[in-house]
């Protein structure tokens, strides 16, 4: 089915089932229990899981397959977001044109950037992409093109939102007091269906499922790329580009194609971000945002299929859940200890939660880079191997005893 091998197909099906039932799976604790703050099954966070999953899957096509480390992918996400919001301002609040435009525009810009940056490799490539991304960030942050032509392109510091007065040529004009909402042929992104079962509350959000569908398509495409001759060529670039060049093969079109594809994935993620939350600001283009997608990809497992999705999920979960744990919560956790001891533990843990959650991600990221270059996926594989081997060894031990 879908022209996939059996193992890939089962992976795709597992991912599809997980995303389909995510509102259940991510909500393991009843709504009014003390553990409910660890629930991740609310629409906003689930949308982020899948959208940043798309972003990381796309980044993995470039970094995982070709080994070119780009530090500027957030710029493409930002460009996609701006394209989407302009579609919503000018054409219609329907998300389809917005998403198509975000992918196309991000593809064009990434073609331009990639065409120039890919003339160099290694650290130079990283710094070129960094320079391009910072340039685009500055252009967006101060809205230079807007100033140049006497209008608004990126809205500068305030960013852009769809307004009632915008000339949406395909839509019927809105009432003056109305709030323009993103929709898919009338189905609003924010609308959700709530299901209450004995203390649990599950939310099924339209926007989440649309984003999840996009993520599954993106994931399927990435599997196909990984298994295709094109993907093979990209891996060859990673392992020895020089040798490839000596055999008379020009690797540039392949790396450029990978760059543009990953830029389009980033654009898709940016467009979806706007579809879910109709506003955009320049800060999502800053270079540390590019660093974030690098962290996601590495954390999950660079070069593996499922790794980036996993990494994006883990990082966004930590961002939202760890940052919610404050000192008060810690005090209730450690209240069973004697006073001095609990103060000590609270002080230690407090360094890693709440506003300081970045420390935790930084430390985990460093540990992964140092000890687990293959990320969580490799960690899981190693654990699996260890269990299998210890099982085998036990069998070996029993044999001589016969």
């Amino acid at each position, binding site marked *: 089915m879908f022209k996939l091998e059996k193992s890939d197909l089962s992976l795709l099906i597992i991912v599809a089932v997980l995303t389909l039932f995510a509102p259940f799976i991510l909500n393991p604790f009843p709504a009014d229990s003390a553990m409910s703050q660890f629930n991740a099954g609310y629409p906003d966070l689930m949308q982020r899981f899948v959208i940043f999953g798309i972003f990381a899957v796309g980044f993995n096509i470039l970094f995982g397959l070709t080994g070119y480390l780009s530090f500027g992918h957030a710029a493409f996400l930002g460009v996609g977001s701006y394209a989407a919001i302009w579609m919503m301002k000018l054409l219609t609040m329907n998300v389809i044109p917005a998403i198509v435009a975000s992918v196309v525009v991000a593809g064009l810009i990434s073609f331009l950037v990639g065409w120039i940056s890919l003339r160099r490799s290694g650290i*130079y490539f990283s710094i*070129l992409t960094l*320079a391009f991304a*910072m340039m685009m960030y500055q252009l967006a942050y101060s809205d230079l093109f807007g100033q140049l032509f006497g209008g608004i392109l990126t809205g500068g510091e305030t960013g852009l939102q769809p307004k009632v007065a915008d000339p949406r040529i395909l839509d019927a004009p809105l009432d003056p007091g109305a709030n323009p909402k993103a929709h898919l042929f009338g189905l609003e992104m924010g609308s959700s269906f709530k299901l209450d079962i004995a203390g649990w509350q599950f939310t099924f959000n339209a926007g989440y499922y649309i984003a999840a569908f996009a993520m599954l398509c993106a994931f399927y495409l990435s599997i196909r790329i990984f298994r295709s001759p094109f993907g093979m060529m990209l891996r060859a670039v990673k392992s020895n580009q020089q040798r490839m060049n000596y055999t008379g093969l020009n690797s540039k079109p392949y790396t450029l194609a990978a760059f543009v594809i990953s830029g389009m994935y980033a654009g898709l993620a940016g467009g979806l971000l706007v579809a879910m939350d109709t506003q955009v600001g320049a800060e999502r283009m800053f270079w540390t945002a590019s660093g974030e997608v690098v962290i996601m990809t590495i954390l999950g497992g660079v070069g593996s299929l499922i790794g980036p999705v996993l990494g994006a999920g883990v990082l966004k979960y930590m961002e939202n859940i760890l940052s919610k744990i404050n000192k008060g919560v810690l005090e209730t956790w450690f209240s069973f200890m004697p006073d001095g001891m609990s103060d000590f533990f609270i002080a230690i843990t407090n*360094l890693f939660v709440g*506003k300081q959650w970045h420390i935790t*991600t930084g430390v985990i990221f460093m540990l992964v*880079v140092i000890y687990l270059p293959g990320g969580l996926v490799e960690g899981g594989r190693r654990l699996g191997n260890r269990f299998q081997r210890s099982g085998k060894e036990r069998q070996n031990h029993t044999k001589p005893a016969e």
Partner: protein
Amino acid sequence: MDAIILQVLNGLDKGSAYALIALGLTLIFGTLGVVNFAHGALFMIGAFCAVTLSRILTLSHTVIDETRKDFLGNPLKVDVPYVHDLFGVETGDAIIDWAVPLSLLFAIPIMIAVGVIMERGLIKHFYKRPHADQILVTFGLAIVLQEVIKYFYGANPIPTPAPAAFKGSFDFGAAIGFDPNVIIYPYWRIIYFGFAAVIIGGVFSFLQFTTFGMVVRAGMADRETVGLLGINIDRRFTIMFGVAAAVAGLAGVMYTPINSPNYHMGMDFLVLSFVVVVVGGMGSLPGAVLAGFLLGILESFASMREVIAIIPGINQVIIYLIAIIILLTRPRGLMGRKGVMED
């Protein structure tokens, strides 16, 4: 003419900061072959050394002053810094006033220690790993360091003034024969430039004229052969990492009166200093210094009102534009050598 001189001067202090950070970065590239994304964090730690020292110096205890009354008629409570008890009031005040220059002494051992610990504890394990891994692990370290500083010092910029003697500005124009009040330049920026020149000169003469420096240069050229000659080159490179960290840290200490330090100043400077290094040519120390000053001055020229009137906003993108053009036309940068970081 006076406008040009003013812009050159304005560019010098920013250029000095770029040059100092890029110098440290290049020292680490050249010796250890490591791409250090945590170098901006070292700059920031240096700046916070100054903050810490000025906080330590102003530590005070409360004394009841019987001679003065507050508005309720009770004896007035006065905060007296401990340095007043130790050195007397006048010397104590002078010490507090000179906190930033004193922090230089305070920062040197701390920064060398931070650098050596970083190298021995973390970076040592990454010599044989690809550059991408080095970038990633030092990027992680930079995040951690930045957030730890944010945890202890808060997210707001902390003003750290220069000594009173250096406040105010120097009428540079009048001194060289232009109209007064045309070219005005703050004293501290002159000092910053002079300081940068001293440090850069110091590092170069250390490498050029001492035996230690000679061995380090030999190791930069061919590490293996130097090792085969029975010289413990790793230990010397570790020390050079400490020196590079100290250079970045001192640049940070002296920068505090120009810009109040905040926790993300390291990340802000990091990208620019990488651009500087690449423009100068990776692995070339004179290239890093030259490109630092060049880009600083270009940036200040681009922010002239006349230039902005022609191309608005050019001041914010000029550095990146120049970097992209240089990387594409002169792939090795201005003064880069062949074969450095080209795999």
